[in-house]
């Protein structure tokens, strides 16, 4: 039946080519709808509890997306007229950044002091150029002793200063982030031109959000062409046929166009993880093409005419190629279990790509091959000779191989626990990306960008001006300040203490919390009257005035350290404060700290479901429960081994690696399917012994297997060059897994089959 279908198909080849081109064109038109997501929140599903906690906190207080300019004078002295003038200029100009609602720096810091019964509120530095050395030294003294500034907008040694711009994005258009970031970058250039004695670095959440599409576009410009060239060279070398190579190139281009176009029609937004879909799809499409073209060319070399050779190839390959496409798609679709939407998109887009590639490989590819001239070079079949020798080796040494492979498997899998979860979001970007480089400068010299934030509620019926509550807040802030890795703690109590001092003639003995409820409340009122544009107490106090925000800035810490610190803080709150204050910390850093855990858990479920489905498909397709179940071992073992090897070599896993099991399971299974289908056919149709069936399997699909595996390893290996560490890690681990899977299929599966895989009904 399949033969008749393919005969008809090939006889209408021009029509088929035209129809396929039209269909791909219609799909591809959707590509103009594609856009890039530029919000780090894209990594979190709407029901992610850490995201919800953080959103609640941000809605209660002022949102704090920001752009931070780090100003580093080359002589290491911020407090001199020229540098201060530069900071003052930037502080004024930064108000022009789109969506900015507040600019803070050492120059416009609202310095309060007392003079008799006068409370003086002024910019700490104004008209910097006119200041004399004494005034500058006085300002320096104030700045480096001000808890609100040190390690936030000025370094303790005053060698680097920051200008922080609070940005409130309406969140309606994708252009908002680049608008603000580009403006900030131009401003930074202007600063460099005005004052060549300073270096300027740019960081902050808005700049990070802007870096996502930038990193993706950089990936597109490097990875896509590289992968394409590699595929062409590889196919040219393997197939030794110009037409076959052109046809493969046409199929992969059309697969990509179709996949990305459909993505546009569906309305998915591109993200760094989905940027690599074309590379994945390219790789998988090549595998389909290889299987069909190799058999076709073999047929022609044996002397068959073109059409019979193609029909024969399609007949042999239709079932396994279909089967492997379905299992691969299932594997990718298991990514829908992921808690991170970009990986769901990655899974669905790749699954679409796999299906499109399959359809093209069995329709467009044979038709195009038949309209192109094919000259078959007579190449010696040394590949098959070598495969036969290899089969003999495996059969002879099967016991040794079985046990030594088993030992290797156990040894590697035992290294699994070495992997530690780590999702430090700045490290998602490669060092080539400015954001990573500038942020590391900021972290090493000025302040951190990892925060833990708390909304601390006062006891029932009390306001935040309650003296007991304020004492608890102060103690909590002090506790945090004593912890390693804590750079800065922002608490309302510091403002209270300063005001108390100001109201008592700047007597340092009064630098302490007011001891009456009314006094605190009235200080806050006074403080509010002194605040400049853009700043209000809502930054730190909720509207109802019964909760206050406390923000902790950390040095770069690993996910485990961050979570441990947050846990200890919770314990401290539980044993030292009233029940109302027993709250969890929330922040983007906390969100990322949990994302690895959450995804690994959800992806374990996803991969298990995928494995069960795939195994069921194999049992049905191979019509053998025994062989089907046996296939689970070579399907599952490589991923365990790869993670074990990763534990030995790298030791850190995170969000991206949690999806590797899902991605690889559907791919790894392909080799097993091809090998087992030949093995089973040999036993069933020819009644061969397990040994001879192994020989047959090696000789028919051995070459195709290592070729496709090599393509896959190269394809995913290319991803290791991504500027986005999530993609690089995922690509590398996937490549390792596929390589290990090939080793397992060649060295472990055959001995396993010879020991346990005798077919009962074979005679």
């Amino acid at each position, binding site marked *: 039946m399949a033969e008749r279908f393919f005969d008809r198909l090939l006889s209408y080849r021009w029509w088929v080519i035209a129809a396929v081109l039209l269909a791909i064109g219609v799909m591809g038109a959707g590509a103009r709808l594609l856009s890039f997501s530029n919000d780090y929140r894209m990594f979190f599903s709407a029901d992610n509890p850490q995201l919800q906690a953080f959103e609640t906190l941000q809605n209660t207080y002022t949102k704090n997306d920001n752009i931070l300019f780090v100003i580093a004078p080359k002589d290491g002295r911020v407090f001199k007229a020229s540098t201060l003038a530069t900071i003052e200029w930037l502080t004024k100009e930064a108000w022009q950044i789109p969506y900015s609602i507040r600019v803070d720096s050492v120059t416009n810091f609202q310095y309060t002091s007392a003079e008799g019964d006068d*409370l003086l*509120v*002024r910019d700490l530095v104004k008209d910097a150029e006119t200041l004399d050395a004494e005034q500058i030294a006085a300002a320096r003294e104030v700045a480096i002793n001000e808890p609100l500034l040190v390690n936030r907008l000025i370094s303790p040694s005053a060698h680097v200063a920051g200008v922080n711009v609070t940005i409130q994005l309406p969140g309606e258009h994708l252009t908002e982030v680049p608008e603000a970031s580009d403006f900030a970058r131009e401003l930074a250039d202007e600063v460099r031109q005005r004052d060549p004695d300073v270096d300027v670095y740019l960081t902050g959440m808005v700049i990070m959000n802007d870096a996502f599409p930038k990193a993706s576009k950089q990936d597109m410009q490097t990875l896509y062409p590289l992968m394409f060239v590699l595929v062409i060279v590889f196919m040219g070398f393997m197939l030794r046929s110009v037409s076959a190579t052109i046809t493969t190139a046409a199929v992969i281009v059309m697969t990509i166009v179709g996949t990305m176009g459909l993505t546009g029609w569906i309305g998915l937004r591109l993200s760094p993880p989905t940027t690599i879909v074309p590379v994945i799809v390219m790789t998988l499409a090549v595998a389909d093409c290889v299987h069909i073209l190799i058999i076709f060319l073999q047929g022609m070399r044996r002397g068959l005419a073109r059409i019979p050779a193609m029909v024969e190839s399609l007949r042999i390959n239709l079932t396994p190629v279909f089967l492997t496409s379905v299992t691969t798609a299932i594997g990718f679709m298991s990514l829908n279990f992921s808690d991170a939407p970009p990986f769901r998109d990655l899974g669905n887009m790749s699954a679409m790509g796999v299906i499109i590639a399959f359809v093209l490989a069995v329709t467009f590819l044979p038709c195009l091959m038949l309209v192109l001239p094919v000259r078959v070079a007579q190449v010696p079949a040394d590949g098959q000779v070598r495969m036969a020798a290899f089969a003999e080796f495996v059969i002879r040494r099967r016991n040794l191989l079985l046990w030594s492979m088993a030992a290797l498997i156990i040894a590697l899998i035992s290294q699994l626990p070495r992997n530690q979860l780590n999702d430090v979001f700045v490290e998602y970007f490669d060092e080539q990306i400015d954001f990573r480089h500038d942020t590391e400068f900021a972290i090493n010299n000025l302040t951190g960008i990892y925060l833990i934030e708390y909304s601390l509620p006062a006891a029932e019926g009390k306001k935040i001006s309650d003296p007991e509550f304020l004492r608890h807040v102060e103690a909590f802030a002090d506790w945090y300040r004593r912890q390693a890795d804590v750079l800065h703690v922002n608490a309302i109590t510091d403002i209270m203490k300063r005001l108390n001092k100001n109201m008592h003639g700047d007597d340092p003995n009064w630098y302490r919390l*007011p001891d009456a*409820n009314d006094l605190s409340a009235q200080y806050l*009122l006074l403080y509010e009257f002194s605040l*400049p544009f853009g700043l*209000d107490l809502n930054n730190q106090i909720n*509207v109802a005035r019964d909760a206050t925000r406390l923000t902790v800035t950390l040095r770069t810490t690993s996910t485990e350290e961050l979570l441990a610190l947050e846990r200890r803080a919770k314990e401290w709150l539980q044993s030292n404060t009233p029940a109302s204050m027993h709250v969890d910390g929330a922040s983007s850093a906390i969100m990322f700290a949990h994302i690895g855990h959450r995804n690994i858990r959800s992806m374990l479920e996803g991969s298990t479901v995928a494995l069960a489905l795939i195994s069921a498909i194999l049992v049905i397709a191979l019509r053998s429960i025994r062989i089907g179940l046996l296939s689970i071992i070579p399907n599952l073992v490589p991923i365990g081994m790869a993670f074990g090897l990763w534990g030995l070599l790298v030791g850190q896993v995170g969000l991206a690696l949690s999806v590797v099991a899902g991605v690889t399971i559907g791919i790894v299974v392909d080799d097993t399917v091809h090998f087992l289908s030949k093995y089973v056919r040999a036993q069933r149709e020819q009644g061969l012994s397990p040994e001879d069936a192994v020989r047959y399997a090696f000789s028919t699909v051995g070459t195709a297997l290592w070729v496709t595996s090599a393509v896959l390893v190269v394809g995913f290996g290319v991803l290791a060059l991504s500027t986005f560490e999530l993609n690089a890690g995922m690509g590398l681990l996937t490549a390792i897994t596929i390589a290990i899977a090939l080793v397992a299929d060649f060295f472990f599966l055959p001995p396993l089959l010879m020991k346990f895989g005798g077919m009962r009904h074979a005679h």
Partner: protein
Amino acid sequence: MRIEGWLLAATIAFATSAVLAESDVDKGLAIAQEADRRDTGFHDFRAELTMLLRNRQGEESSRVMRSQSIEVDGDGDRTLIVFDEPRDVQGTALLTYSHKSGDDDQWLYLPALKRVKRIASSNKSGPFMGSEFAYEDLASQEIEKYGYRYVRDEEFDNQPAFVIERDPVDENSGYRRQLVWIDKAEYRPLKIEFYDRKDSLLKTLLFKSYRQYLGRYWRAEEMFMENHQTGKSTLLTWKTYEFQVGLSDADFTKNSLKRAK
């Protein structure tokens, strides 16, 4: 010839626009002056006001206070505000001498400290009592504090109105400009749009339920301020307006702050 021709045309165009701009400036100023004239001479008034603050989450909180003002010849008004709620700031009082130019003078009385403190600050744009009103939005609107320009005629809320633009003179102002809708019949502000320093729309203030006092002075009972950038809003409600209640300068001194409970 060609170059001279262009130059001539450009000069004429420039001159024309300058003349037009000049007349717009005059017209804007005239409208502001007329509005000011109609609102001058009330001598003094007293009122109670309530502020309802609301954040993006819809959480609400209220403030209650009393206010009294007196006109000063040749200078800005003097205003005394006494806070009643929240209870922990009850009795706190703020006295302001606004000036036609330069920083206003402000004194604050803190009952818990039993002291009057002068606040010396150039900040005018900070939030008033945590609301969306900046101090400069509520302070007396002296003509000299802005430059004016007539923009267009436009109907607002079924009332014919002038739209004028005013640019704050004070460099510490948080605004680049404001657009004010003034009704042609009574010269009352109906709506003000506030644009921040980068000229994006920051806030909109709507005046509602105007009532006339002493047969002459119009006061809005409700002023609704919405911040478009943060999603927060404040509803300011004025109650029990009383005009010419016999206040004198003696009611607006540092000492009167402590007495005003």
